[in-house]
């Protein structure tokens, strides 16, 4: 089959690779209909998560048709049109029973790497390095899905492929941030980042009853999408002072809930941005956390912050004093998608959650290298490059 692979720092190729096979009784094989680039892939491409091997198949956000099922699969069947969560979870360990699926104890066959880095290992993820299991990704004609009954959800007839695709990761991640940060009716929610995840976090906050939702970014086409398709307000950080805007818009309190949807390669203007770039390039810190810092400083006293952006290891100048003295609740997680996907598909079926606008560039899988280049450079207003194998 054909597949898009990581072949080196900032290098993507399309190659012929072996077809996947059922390896475990709980596996299913999915013929991929649509698979999308994700902002977190850029950390892999750029070499910031140094556990990729040349030839690894990329991609973790996808949907398609079940074409084969293992002996222990009970619910999924051949012919089901499914969306698959990006994290691999067994559904039976204590973490899965608590609906903390990305923390699954039985989802990552390479726990030694992440335990060494973080003290504990999260679950595995498709196409996201050998630190998260070394599973082949979805930018391919076929993909093996472990624990198929747990991670694959049948898409309702009335939901299009392009809408369902983003339930795999962008929507479920955004929804998780809004819900687990404790968004409730009357809240003001600020979201850093207007990519797919940030937009969906904003939409989820609105559906959870937030009074006011503000999305912060600098790219005009993304801010326009937020206004037009999400219905939230926007702040362009390249033209105004975010902290001052947020104070002004919240009666001096600051947002009740802050959601960071940017991650380890945050762009920020001025001295702060230069400082983080230099430290990261000199390997004195692994991540650039400017959005996290700003969110902590902006958040109201006693408010909450959810970190959705992917971070690898350690950062500098983390404002722990502000976090502690303001009594903030800070949470983060990789996506517990299995917890939120059923509700998300219902909202999608009712037309309350639309995602088609995120797919600004839909192209054949063979054009994946070009798609990633456009996505990385934000060329032609690219929000997501979606590939069709």
């Amino acid at each position, binding site marked *: *089959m054909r*597949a898009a*692979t990581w*072949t*080196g720092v900032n290098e993507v*190729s399309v*190659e012929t*690779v*072996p*077809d*996947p*096979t059922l*390896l*475990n*009784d*709980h596996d299913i094989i999915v013929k991929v209909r649509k698979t999308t680039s994700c902002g977190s892939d850029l950390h892999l491409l750029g070499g910031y998560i*140094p*556990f*990729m*091997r*040349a*030839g*690894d*198949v990329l991609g973790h956000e996808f949907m398609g048709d079940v074409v084969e099922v293992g002996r*222990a699969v009970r619910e999924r069947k051949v012919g089901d049109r499914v969306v698959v969560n990006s994290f691999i979870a*067994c559904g*039976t*360990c*204590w973490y899965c*029973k608590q609906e903390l699926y990305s923390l699954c*104890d*039985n*989802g990552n*066959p*390479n*726990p*030694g*790497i992440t*335990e*060494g*880095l*973080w*003290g*504990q*290992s999260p679950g*595995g993820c498709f196409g996201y390095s*050998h630190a998260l*299991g*070394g*599973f*082949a990704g979805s930018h*391919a004609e076929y993909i*093996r899905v*472990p*624990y198929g009954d747990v991670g694959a959800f049948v898409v309702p007839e009335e939901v299009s492929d392009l809408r369902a695709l983003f339930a795999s990761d962008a929507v479920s991640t955004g929804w998780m941030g809004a819900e687990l940060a404790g968004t409730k009716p009357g809240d003001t929610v600020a979201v850093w980042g207007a990519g797919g995840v940030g937009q969906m976090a904003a939409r989820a906050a609105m559906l959870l009853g937030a009074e006011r939702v503000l999305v912060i970014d600098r790219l005009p086409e993304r801010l326009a999408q937020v206004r037009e398709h999400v219905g939230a307000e926007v702040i362009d950080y390249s033209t105004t002072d975010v902290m001052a805007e947020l104070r002004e818009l919240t009666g001096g309190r600051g947002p009740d809930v802050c959601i960071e949807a940017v991650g380890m390669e945050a762009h920020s203007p001025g001295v702060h941005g230069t400082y983080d770039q230099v430290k990261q390039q000199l390997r004195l810190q692994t991540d650039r956390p400017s959005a996290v810092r700003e969110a902590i400083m902006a958040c109201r006293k006693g408010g909450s912050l959810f970190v959705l952006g992917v971070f690898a*290891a*350690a950062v500098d100048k983390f404002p722990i004093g502000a976090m502690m003295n303001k009594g903030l609740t800070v949470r983060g997680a990789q996506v517990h998608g299995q917890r939120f996907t059923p509700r998300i598909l219902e909202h999608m079926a009712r037309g309350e959650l639309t995602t088609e606008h995120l797919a600004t560039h839909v192209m054949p899988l063979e054009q994946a290298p070009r798609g990633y280049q456009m996505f990385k450079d934000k060329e032609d207003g690219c929000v997501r490059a979606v590939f069709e194998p």
Partner: protein
Amino acid sequence: MPLPKIVTRAAGLAGGAGGKALQQLQHLRLPGFGQSSVTDDPRTAARRWRAVSVLTDPEQLRTAIPVPLAAFGDRLDVRVTPAPGDRGAELAARFRGPVTEDEIGDLRAALRESKALVEVGEVLRVDPQPHGHRKATPQGAAIEGMAERAPREGVL
């Protein structure tokens, strides 16, 4: 020596180095990075209980020690205790005498496999996976060495 041979030789060394590096990472205590339970001297490390929590009735584990642990025979002490707060059972094991780092790695893998067999009914496999052309580079070989070693390393 021709260049391809040099690269292949370097890659081979790097593969071993990758596994070794991961092993060494378990002993590091850099601020903000890494964590390990294996900072004791070899004799103490060998005697330390290594444990996993298994979401099951403790009685089930007491009556039938999972096969991966049973395979160690009388070289291990195995302990099963109820885990607090409906977390199932704590399955712990330790060697009865001095052992090597590799044998401790075998025990880590056996504990994880035991947990998976009880909770899921099978151990998750990852190989063979579809992949494209693997360039013979030292960095790539190091990643492969790490991945090969990873099931037997960690904080257990």
